[in-house]
């Protein structure tokens, strides 16, 4: 065995670092899914009647739908009745008013994850909402945000305090019947973040939500809604982790972004759900629908994602470029190691004039993983002057993994300019030896080279998270050179 291969083997034995379970008493809805469960969830949240009707409508439609099968992912049938659809830490039944009332076990959990929730210890300039299983446990820096009129709170709270806003926008970007998982989410979503940035306001800090699945046999269905009024700006980041479990857990989230005239939303994700073990046992099934609507002229939505976790990733953050001169961006790093399967990409729908989109995708495959970029660029007839640039780069580590690029281009406007470039490469032994000869060990060398490969995307992340993401890239590839 070569020296490299040995190091790899050692590294491969390293374990997921967020795999612990918090021992906390939880309250569950009865197992399975039916109308009663939908009512139970809605009731737990004291939702208005229209919300319950909306959910029930979604549930009934979901019953008539089937799972999409077009993605390059392979998994046994999911038994939707063998899962809990609601889990909440028990002490939380009447929600904490401030951090002092949050269960110390929970605070410890977030500290272990590297996310201190007490405000004085926080990274300067980042407001955090933390979602534990089905409920939000803490939102920081609320007062400071309220001063400028920014609303940042759990969706359930928004439903209570700002029902008119939620009702106006919920489901307008991702319709209830959009797809199987989005419809399921519409029926049973339990928590998520709500952000509203008033006209002309530049949100004074990064907003961020950390999602944590803790309870066993529990699905997570969060729903996030971000509205940026005219000429406003907000940058939002979500992070996700889950304990190591032998079973597969379902995560089916929906994220909707609305950017009105001149507004800009920057949405970043560092997704590190448990990926399963090296033989493919356990791990999160991540079936997520994310879409942004550049509803106003001159608006901009930028997605940045670092996808390192999950057993299966099925995710296509998209932009509807409705407003003239609006801009959509998608920057993605997708890492699939061991037995992970990732099918991810974006959709850029050009409707308005002079709309521009930019897609930079970096896929890294290692072990026996399969990594697919799937992207659609669609230019409608009225989108004069539309432009797209797509760059898809794949990096293969070892010979047992696969990288696939599936671009779909539909242009109904002869003046549109759509460019697509794709490359596939490997880390060469020469490059690796060059690093080693300078004193850099194999593990660090791989991380260095891969981070270089991903640089264009990493640069898009807010400063506070770029370093974290770089480390994560290194960690998720430990043991992958061959």
């Amino acid at each position, binding site marked *: 065995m*070569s*020296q*490299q291969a040995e190091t790899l083997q050692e590294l491969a034995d390293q374990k997921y670092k967020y795999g612990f379970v918090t021992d906390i008493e939880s309250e569950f809805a009865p197992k399975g899914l039916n109308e009663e469960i939908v009512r139970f969830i809605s009731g737990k949240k004291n939702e208005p009647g229209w919300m319950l009707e909306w959910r029930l409508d979604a549930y009934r439609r979901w019953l008539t739908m089937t799972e999409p099968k077009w993605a390059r992912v392979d998994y046994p049938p999911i038994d939707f009745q063998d899962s809990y659809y609601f889990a909440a830490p028990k002490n939380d039944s009447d929600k904490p008013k401030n951090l002092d009332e949050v269960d110390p076990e929970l605070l410890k959990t977030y500290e272990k994850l590297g996310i201190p929730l007490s405000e004085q210890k926080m990274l300067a300039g980042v407001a955090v909402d933390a979602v534990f299983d089905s409920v939000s446990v803490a939102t920081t820096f609320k007062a400071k945000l309220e001063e400028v009129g920014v609303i940042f709170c759990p969706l359930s709270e928004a439903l209570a305090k700002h029902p008119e806003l939620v009702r106006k926008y919920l489901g307008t970007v991702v319709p209830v019947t959009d797809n199987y998982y989005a419809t399921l989410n519409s029926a049973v979503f339990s928590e998520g973040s709500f952000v509203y940035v008033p006209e002309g306001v530049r949100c004074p800090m990064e907003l961020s939500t950390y999602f944590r699945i803790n309870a066993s046999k529990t699905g997570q269905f969060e729903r996030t809604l971000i509205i940026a009024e005219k000429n406003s700006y907000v940058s939002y980041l979500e992070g996700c982790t889950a304990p190591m479990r032998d079973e597969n857990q379902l995560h089916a989230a929906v994220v909707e972004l609305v950017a009105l005239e001149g507004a800009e939303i920057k949405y970043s994700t560092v997704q590190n759900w448990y990926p399963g073990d090296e033989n493919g046992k356990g791990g999160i099934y991540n079936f997520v629908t994310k879409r942004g609507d550049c509803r106003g002229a001159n608006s901009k939505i930028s997605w940045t994602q670092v996808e390192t976790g999950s057993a299966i990733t099925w995710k296509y953050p998209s932009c509807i470029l409705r407003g003239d001169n609006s801009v959509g961006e998608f920057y993605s790093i997708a890492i699939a190691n061991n037995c992970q399967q990732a099918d991810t990409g974006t959709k850029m729908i050009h409707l308005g004039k002079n709309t521009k989109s930019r897609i930079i995708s970096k896929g890294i495959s290692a072990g026996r993983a399969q990594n697919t970029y799937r992207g659609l660029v669609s230019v409608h007839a009225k989108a004069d002057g539309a432009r797209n640039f797509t760059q898809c780069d794949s990096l293969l580590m070892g010979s047992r993994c696969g990288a696939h690029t599936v671009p779909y281009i539909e242009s109904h406007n002869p003046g549109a300019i759509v460019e697509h470039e794709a490359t596939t490469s490997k880390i*060469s*032994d*020469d*490059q690796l*030896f*060059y*690093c*080693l*000869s*300078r*004193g*850099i*060990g*194999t593990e*660090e060398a791989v991380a*260095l*080279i891969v*981070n*270089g*490969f*991903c*640089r*264009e995307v990493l640069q898009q992340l807010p400063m506070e998270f770029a370093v974290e993401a770089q480390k994560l890239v290194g960690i998720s590839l430990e043991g992958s050179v061959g």
Partner: protein
Amino acid sequence: MLEINDLHVSVHGKDILKGLSLTVPPGEVHAIMGPNGAGKSTTSYTLAGRDGYDVTQGSIRFKGEDMVPLPPEERAAKGIFLAFQYPLEIPGVSTLTFLKSAVNAQARLRGEKELDAVQFLKLIRETAKGLNISEEMLKRSLNVGFSGGEKKRNEVLQMALLKPSLAILDETDSGLDIDAMKLVAEGVNALRAPDRSFLVITHYQRLLDYIVPDHIHILAGGRIVKSGDKSLALQLEEQGYDAVIGKVA
């Protein structure tokens, strides 16, 4: 500093070095010349510990210690540096980032304190200045789009920063214009010290006008076939390998 004794090396099953012996005492500069394919780069890779360069016989001792079992990064930390004949490109990784990783990785391996960003920047700026390497260049992806000469100067920068005890320069002068060659030579000469040795592999005696060697060795057919002083290079230049060493099988 370096003692190579009866070294046999095979690369992917092919015997390339066949009984190479060479001793480089501390503070000395030794030049290695030899025809294409003689095994010069093979020697340098073997010294640096490249995977796949199997020592089948003989020994390599560096500061008295057996190097053969050590992986490349440990040899680097102990003070062996190789300036590559063909430096590699690493897209997306700046020279700054690469060298900071290298300096600190070596410090860790030696149990020394790592440099923080400020200390490192100060160090690299000073070093780069002497080699006429601009700040802009340090921020570019390592060797990507660099001209041949720029790549070689970057190798010398790395050497100057890592301050090895033994620097092996594999044709660092190839592809350099006269001014760049002088810069490189100055860079090397500035590092000459009683506790530092150099192994300079070159095809051209011109470099040796600037970096004056203590000894010159001719490597052919996988071993040192002739050694001498500086005049050997002149003789080679005038007469060619065949006349000086005869046909080597």
